[in-house]
């Protein structure tokens, strides 16, 4: 009997304790981390847990949507998944934080979390230390956006042996599905790993006629092709700057890989140009890419020349297009789409929205690798109207870089270093009907402090509508047991 009385007392006490403060004064805006104030979230996203960044004796947070609410005590607001689902199903959420200081409650200015369309449930990224030349532990991970579960797709430690380590990079999926997936392994047991409809392949994409193995990929949306850049990439270091590193190419071209006969052909290899970042239009009839004109290629073929060009900020990439006939595999001539170099800028990472309306790119002062630059922004072209604008509602005073569209074209994920300038984090933003974006928000984590504690970068975030279907062990065993098959080289077909 005593036990029951004790239990009931504790229960009643706990209920009483979570009661919303009745007597309070109104305060100002609340400071929370991550900043989830007045954001728009997908209806299926994991709970937007946050922590209150103000000193108080007690905290009380009320999340309300329709006739449903959740009350949470404490500085860390850890929202139960089921209750969060219930709230998001009812629509926009109003969040009110109460803080007790010196025995008096203050109701901070409420903020809204708007709820919009669903997002693709999976986000894949590489976990990587921010600056380095060595690699000991790299993983390709996949996060379930509807909860906090994260799984490893592949880790280099699964096949590395002592000092024989691997760099893994450039994971990519065809049309947001995981039946067609690829990533590269460099160095030990290296090759391009292709997963196609349950079958694995390991390829050596370097041929005598190409400058390197395949690097930045873009799956053709309708046919069995992948456009790649081929790059000889280097990195150098700043001596005395908050920027730590400069990544640059010594040489780069574009190739097309035909998956049906494992052949590669040149798309562009102008010796006076550094071509990079191929990206298909949604119909697969046009390829966007960036290229820097070097003036005198003989000069920059020397590594020192490239370094000098980069360090002086004169190495600037512009945006080009090439039309493509996927059935006959023929190319038209190149056309300049946006002459960023002419306005003393460098444009990279073109990505067209799934509906073909918007083209989102990264723009910075110079160079080919904006994540490591102090400031780089997103710029968006309206392909229907032929206009462009800087996406100020997303851009911060730090580096915004790799970005990716969700399959419904309503969400983008952006790699941003806005928090500390060094560690790249994925931010999500919703595209409104008028072509503007909502305030970007940090990918929710179970522990809102995670972002402060986890000193690695999230690299190349890519949405998928389904989980990766091949297990890490199967991938590792395949990597270890298979030699990289060579690919054929074919001549380019011009229209």
């Amino acid at each position, binding site marked *: 009997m005593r036990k029951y009385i004790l239990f009931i007392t504790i229960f009643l006490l706990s209920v009483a304790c979570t009661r919303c403060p009745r007597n309070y004064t109104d305060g100002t805006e609340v400071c929370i981390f991550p900043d989830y104030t007045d954001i728009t979230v997908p209806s299926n996203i994991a709970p937007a847990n946050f922590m209150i960044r103000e000193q108080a004796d007690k905290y009380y947070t009320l999340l309300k949507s329709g006739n449903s609410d959740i009350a949470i005590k404490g500085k860390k607001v850890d929202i139960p998944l089921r209750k969060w689902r219930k709230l998001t199903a009812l629509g926009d959420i109003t969040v009110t934080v109460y803080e007790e200081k010196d025995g008096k409650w203050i109701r901070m200015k409420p903020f809204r979390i708007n709820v919009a369309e669903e997002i693709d449930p999976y986000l894949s990224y590489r976990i990587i230390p921010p*600056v380095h030349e060595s690699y000991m*532990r790299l993983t390709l991970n996949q996060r379930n956006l509807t909860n906090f579960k994260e799984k490893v797709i592949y880790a280099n*430690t699964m096949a590395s042996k002592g000092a024989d380590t691997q760099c893994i990079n450039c994971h990519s999926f065809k049309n947001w599905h995981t039946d067609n997936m690829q990533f590269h392994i460099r160095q030990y047991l290296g090759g391009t790993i292709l997963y196609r409809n349950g079958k694995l392949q390991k390829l050596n994409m370097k041929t005598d006629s190409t400058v390197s193995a395949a690097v930045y990929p873009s799956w053709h949306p309708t046919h069995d092709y992948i456009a790649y850049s081929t790059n000889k990439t280097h990195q150098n270091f700043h001596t*005395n700057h908050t920027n*730590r590193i400069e990544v640059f190419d010594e040489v780069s071209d574009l190739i097309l890989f035909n998956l049906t006969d494992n052949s590669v052909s040149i798309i562009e290899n102008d010796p006076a140009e550094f071509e990079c970042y191929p990206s298909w239009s949604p119909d697969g009839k046009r390829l966007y890419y960036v290229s820097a004109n070097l003036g005198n290629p003989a000069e920059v073929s020397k590594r020192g020349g490239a370094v000098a060009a980069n360090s002086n900020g004169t190495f600037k990439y512009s945006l080009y297009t090439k039309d493509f006939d996927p059935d006959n595999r023929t190319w038209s001539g190149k056309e300049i789409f946006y002459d960023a170099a002419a306005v003393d800028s460098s444009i990279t990472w073109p990505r067209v929205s799934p509906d073909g309306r918007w083209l989102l790119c990264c723009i910075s002062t110079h160079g080919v690798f904006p994540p490591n630059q102090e400031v780089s922004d997103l710029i968006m072209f309206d392909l229907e109207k032929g206009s462009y604008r800087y996406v100020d509602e997303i851009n911060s005073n730090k580096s915004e870089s790799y970005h990716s569209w969700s399959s419904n074209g309503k969400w983008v994920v952006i790699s941003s270093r806005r928090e500390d300038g060094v560690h790249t984090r994925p931010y999500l933003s919703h595209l409104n009907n008028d072509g503007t974006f909502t305030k970007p928000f940090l990918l929710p984590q179970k522990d809102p402090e*995670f972002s402060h504690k986890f*000193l690695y970068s999230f690299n190349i975030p890519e949405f998928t509508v389904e989980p990766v279907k091949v297990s890490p062990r199967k991938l*590792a065993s395949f990597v270890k047991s298979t030699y990289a098959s060579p690919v054929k080289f074919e001549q380019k077909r011009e229209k």
Partner: protein
Amino acid sequence: MAKARWILPVALWGVLTFFSYEFLLKVEERSLFLYDALWLKDFLIKPSGILSFLSLFLTQFLHIPWLGALIWTILLTLSAELTRIIFRIPVTLSALTFIPASIFVAYNMSMGYTVYLTNLPGYFYMPLLGYLWALLTVTVLRKERKAAVLLILFLTWGFAGYYIAGFYSLAGTVATCIYISVSGDYSRTGKILPIAVTAVSLLLAPVAFAGTTTYNISNGWIIGMPEQDYGLTFTRMQLPLMLAMVCLAIAPVIKFRNVLSGKGITMAIQSAAIAVVIAVPSLFWFRDDNFKAELGMIRATELMDWDKVTDIYSKLQNRHEKDPSWQPTRVHVLLKDLALIKTGQEGERAYGFENGCKKQKTRCDVPMAFQIGKILHLNYGIPGICNRWCDEEAVLFGCNYLTYKYYAMIAILLNDNTLTEEYLDKLEKTLFYRKWAREQRKIYRDRDLLAQTAPYDMIIPLMCYDDIITSDLNGCEYFLINHFNGPMPANSTPLYDRVALYFALDSKQSALFWPRFNIYLNSNKPSRIARFYQEAAYLFCNIENDPRLETLPFNEKTRNLYKSFMQSASRIGMKSLKDARNAIPANLRHSYYFYFYYVNELEMF
């Protein structure tokens, strides 16, 4: 005799505390234990992660070397005592029980320069804790039980034990099977079942956990042991630990009661065991005066005890005064130079020491950048390259106290408050570095205060140059030479001018020396020109018939020394550089003239 066995641990503790404390501190500095749940989580996902976590917990106490050594010694003694009790080894043969412990001592203390390359978190305590776990395994599993209970117990222990202690647990279960099979106390089922279940868990445990973790499955059976890497071989990294585990397997086989049949035999075995227990660590203990001095100098540099840095160098030099083959390593020379620069004594004392480039006593290449790259680049005001080496080290060997400390100092120097907070937060979650983190927190936002606080007061003035994008191509010393011998910054500070002059002096190029000498005189306005700057100026004036020979205020000692040196050099005539160098009288060796003409074959890193 029985009581005498306590002498060994006490002696070990004494040796560690008084003669190897620099090494223990280095082990501690290169580890990390955070009082943080997210950090702990990282250990829970990997077999042997818990053992690693516990080892790191204990490693942090090496920060106070006598305490860390005491804990280690107590655990070593405990392992011996438990071995004796579990395998019923008579006290009269107790020295035998110290054999595994002696292997662990030899293993750790033979590390030497490997300390810079080992990448298993908690490697210092892990073998010992693993051995203790293996002993626990034998204790728990060896009791005869009903078949069903045995089955469940062995299966559970096989898998759960593997998760906790990896290789050591597998070794423990194998030892138990040997124990059971050689003992006459077990039924047939009681013998066969454990062996069968152990075989299953031995085969399947690594496979079972492979799906949840990211290690190379071929390493699954040895997980918990340091990996072979960077020239570290199986013989160095894994064989000794396997041998220690073999002792566990052998112990049950030996019939100690039979051995005790004769007192003479007992005595002989005990004596032999004592010899082994003493000989194994003694033989493998890494003894290298240069290494010890390097560790001491690095430690003193970290503590900004610049006088101690030069003291250690002087003492080392004096100890080897009569050994003509002795040379300092580049680590000694570079740290000595740094200490002299920091105390403003480089012009007076830099060439008063022996110079050299003795190859470090290491079998595998240990890049200098991993040894003192961070220290040099930070102290010479090149935070970008310091950051690079923190990153490389963190990626290859995991973050440690020192990398976080350097990350924090870099962020402070670059006025990057958000990053500073992130790194200080990490250090605040440690036991012994939180005080340092709190001190930094008090000063880093106040740039004026910072500029007056060590070590920043001597670093900020060296950061007066414009940022450049470059690479050190993994060569610390070359990079520093090129950095300070490059174009002078437009707004150079007196300290920068002084350092640039010293590097010009060291590079023996008069074209570099003269402009820097003039800048130095203008900015530093020394009341008297330091000895070696005078010697360099006097030498270059003589070589180039420079009219400044008459105008510069060279003192008599400089002139006379030059005269004596040149006379001596002409007397020696054309000999090989080595012979000529040795023929120069001792009183002329510690001059810039000697450095200029006879120190020419320094291999830099």
